[in-house]
């Protein structure tokens, strides 16, 4: 007990000193902290339940993605069979369908079957590192080609779509001007969006939940409204419903399937006002290709109507009064300034490759968060102080050592959390208080053991020595079980519970260090200098 080597004392002191130093930035107000060098800026982050903000869990509609994939492949097949070198190069096909999740078609000229296959093969790609292609191409009944998406291809497609979706959502959230948003992929088909300090989650949801697939399509003027109401429309056209609150009473429009211009050809979108009625609108600009198409089509169709379709719903279907040559247009609908702005942001960032739905939302207002911090801090301090007083009253000098160790423990926990950029959540505060209890438990074990050994008639030195060595075993075992529980919470828990597990784990490790090693250093020093023959414990 007496031979507490000098290097050990120095080592422990350095650790404690570092602990205090690294915990300081977390207590400073933001402005002071910003003026510090970046090394000293690491601080404990506050979770959304303390800082206020929104947590959204978005899930991709994978079935929708598969459907888009099939439709795209169907288009690819048409283009590929048409050939690059004029009509002689065409391969005649028929009965093209995408039913049952497969593309299937007939090759009319059997001699061209192999060539058709080759052309399609060059349209497919390797799926990641699996060695598989993303589509398998089979020939059945000699004349029919069937293309099936492979599972590796589908996995790859979902992964690619999710990466793109993540980037697009990040762009949109950044455009909203929020600070420090977190946008990460979770699992195969989910994205977590966390935006601290946000007041209006509805706007956020509006923004990131929108696929923003914009299409300009011609209204089919040949369609008979009565026939259309019964679901019968001319070949090459389809019924597209109006978006909620649009259409002035009309439920749908019959539109040509062919897309005149799509959102991919946009170069800019801004919220602005309609000069005629001062309503909020979204002004868009097309790229050069889009501009010339738009000019050509509008010139050919003066007097007819075209429709602006967003995510499969018609927003408005204005008449073309004159050719629109400048490459810009206005999207009108019943917008508010906010919703027009949200749409502009969504259009600028591009369409999401897959439809996303919010499957979980948790929002805490900053006021409630601030209230939780204040009450949590007060309760934490009162809890710590009452435990400290109890230790002093019960163990005297050894209680003082335990208390000093406990205070160091608090600093160490904060310092380590800051160093790892860990997040403090509301349950984390409870974890903090629990750790205080666990930390004194170690000292209780040691001190009770010392009392016991003294009662057995041992000398002071020997009793203290035994107290530390015998109690350490139980302390170790007991803390391992806590770490097991905390690790499981970390793996399976979500947000706030993860925060709790982090604090608990860090607290367990630091509490063993402070409650055993640090108090031992104090006790050794005291024994060496005072050499007491009796102790009051």
């Amino acid at each position, binding site marked *: 007990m007496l031979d507490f080597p000098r290097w050990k004392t120095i080592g422990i002191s350095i650790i404690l000193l570092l602990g205090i130093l690294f915990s300081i930035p977390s207590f400073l107000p933001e402005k002071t902290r910003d003026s510090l060098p970046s090394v000293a800026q690491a601080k404990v982050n506050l979770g959304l339940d303390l800082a206020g903000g929104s947590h959204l*869990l978005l899930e991709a509609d994978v079935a929708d993605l598969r459907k888009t994939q099939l439709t795209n492949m169907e288009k690819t097949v048409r283009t590929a069979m048409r050939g690059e070198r004029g009509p002689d190069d065409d391969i005649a096909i028929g009965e093209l369908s995408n039913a049952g999740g497969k593309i299937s078609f007939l090759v009319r000229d059997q001699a061209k079957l192999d060539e058709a296959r080759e052309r399609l093969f060059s349209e497919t790609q390797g799926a990641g590192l699996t060695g598989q292609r993303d589509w398998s191409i089979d020939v059945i009944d000699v004349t029919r080609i069937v293309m099936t998406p492979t599972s590796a291809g589908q996995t790859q497609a979902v992964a690619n779509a999710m990466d793109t979706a993540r980037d697009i959502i990040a762009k949109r959230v950044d455009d909203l001007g929020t600070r420090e948003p977190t946008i990460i992929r979770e699992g195969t088909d989910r994205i977590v969006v966390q935006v601290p300090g946000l007041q209006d989650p509805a706007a956020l949801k509006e923004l990131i939940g929108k696929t923003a697939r914009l299409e300009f399509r011609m209204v089919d003027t040949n369609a008979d409204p009565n026939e259309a109401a019964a679901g019968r429309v001319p070949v090459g056209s389809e019924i597209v419903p109006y978006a909620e609150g649009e259409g002035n009473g009309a439920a749908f429009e019959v539109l040509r399937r062919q897309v005149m211009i799509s959102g991919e050809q946009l170069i800019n979108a801004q919220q602005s006002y309609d000069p005629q009625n001062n309503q909020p609108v979204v002004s868009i600009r097309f790229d050069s290709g889009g501009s010339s198409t738009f000019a050509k089509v509008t010139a050919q169709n003066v007097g007819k109507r075209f429709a602006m379709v967003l995510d499969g719903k018609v927003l408005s279907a204005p008449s073309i009064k004159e050719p629109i040559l400048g490459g810009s247009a206005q999207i009108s609908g019943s917008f508010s300034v906010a919703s027009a702005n949200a749409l502009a942001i969504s259009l600028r960032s591009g369409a999401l490759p897959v439809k996303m739905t919010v499957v979980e939302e948790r929002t805490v207002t900053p006021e409630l968060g601030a209230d939780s911090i204040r009450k*949590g801090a007060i309760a934490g301090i009162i809890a710590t102080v009452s*435990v400290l007083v109890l230790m002093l*009253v019960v163990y005297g000098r050894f209680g003082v050592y335990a208390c000093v160790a406990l205070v160091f423990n608090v600093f160490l926990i904060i310092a380590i959390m800051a160093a790892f950029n860990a997040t403090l959540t509301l349950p984390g*505060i*409870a974890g903090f208080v629990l750790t205080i209890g666990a930390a004194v438990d170690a000292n209780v074990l040691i001190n009770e053991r010392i009392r016991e050994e003294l*009662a057995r008639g041992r000398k002071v030195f020997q009793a203290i020595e035994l107290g530390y060595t015998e109690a350490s075993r139980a302390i170790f075992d007991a803390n*391992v079980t806590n770490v097991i*529980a905390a690790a499981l919470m970390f793996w*399976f828990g979500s947000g706030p519970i993860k925060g709790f597990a982090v604090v608990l784990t860090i607290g367990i490790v630091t509490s063993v260090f402070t409650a055993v090693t640090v108090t031992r250093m104090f006790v050794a020093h005291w024994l060496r200098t005072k050499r007491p023959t009796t102790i009051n414990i």
Partner: protein
Amino acid sequence: MRLLKLVPDNTNIDFLRWRKWASFMSFFLVAISIALVATKGLNLGVDFVGGQSVRVEFTQDMPPIDEIREKVGKIGLGEATIQQFGSDKAISIRTALPEGDKSAAERAGQQLVAGIQKAFPTAKTGSVETVSGKVSGELIRTGAISLGLAIIGISIYIWIRFEWQFGVGALGRLFHEVSLTFGLFAVTQMQFDLNSVAALLTIVGYSLNDTIVVYDRIRENLKKYRKMDIVPLLNLSINETLSRTVMTTVAMVLALGMLLIFGPDVIFGFTAAMLFGVFIGGYSSVLMSTPVLVWLKVGPDSFIPRTTAGMGGGERVERKDDGAVV
């Protein structure tokens, strides 16, 4: 300065004498808890049933619950579950998952907030949570898995560090504690959500602290007093560690009690569950987890001949002279 002693020195209470009564009591309480969970059910939060929940704080006096229920019912999201927090001005209003497509679920949260703000203009809506049916199903599953794994994992750890009888004792005790805590949630109808699972996991981890301390002492005494009968040996071990059990329990109750009284009401249920766990933990480590060892016939030979002794306190075997003082 005279120091306070919560437990007098050298207690010699025959705890094991009550072991039949204590086991009967524990079985009885576990049975009641299970029956309560089965009949009254748990008041599951949105985390586990899906739906939307809004925390509402009234700046003036809170209107009667019935009035709130009626007005919320008119929003059109079905019957509301109203839960009071620790403070008397804050409540949580919860409605079930809306029927219809996914977008209906997406809008329901906003609809509820807007409806509440219209019905009670002076109230503040503090936090909104909406969880879809699919996610809530997953949360139930992962919650159950983590709780199960924690109980099994910790029992296995104790089995490896001690002996199989101790592992069984730990398993029994954990089952006991978890059931009683579920019983608490059923009786009080406190909201059972993700935080409650965290509280349960903490209880599982923490309350084993106590058991391990007692078990550690039993292991030590088994090696020291090889001729002593098991019942007096267990009694001795409990008595030797009694002052520590009491002291730690008091410290924990003190810390968690302060958090319960002064802490944020959002984690009231969380803290209450942990406090309850600490309380039960004190009882179980004295009267519940030790008697199991008598039935499982733990004896001095449980440790000596096996190699596992080297992992635990095997190095202490040579100190046989230790016990003579008592």
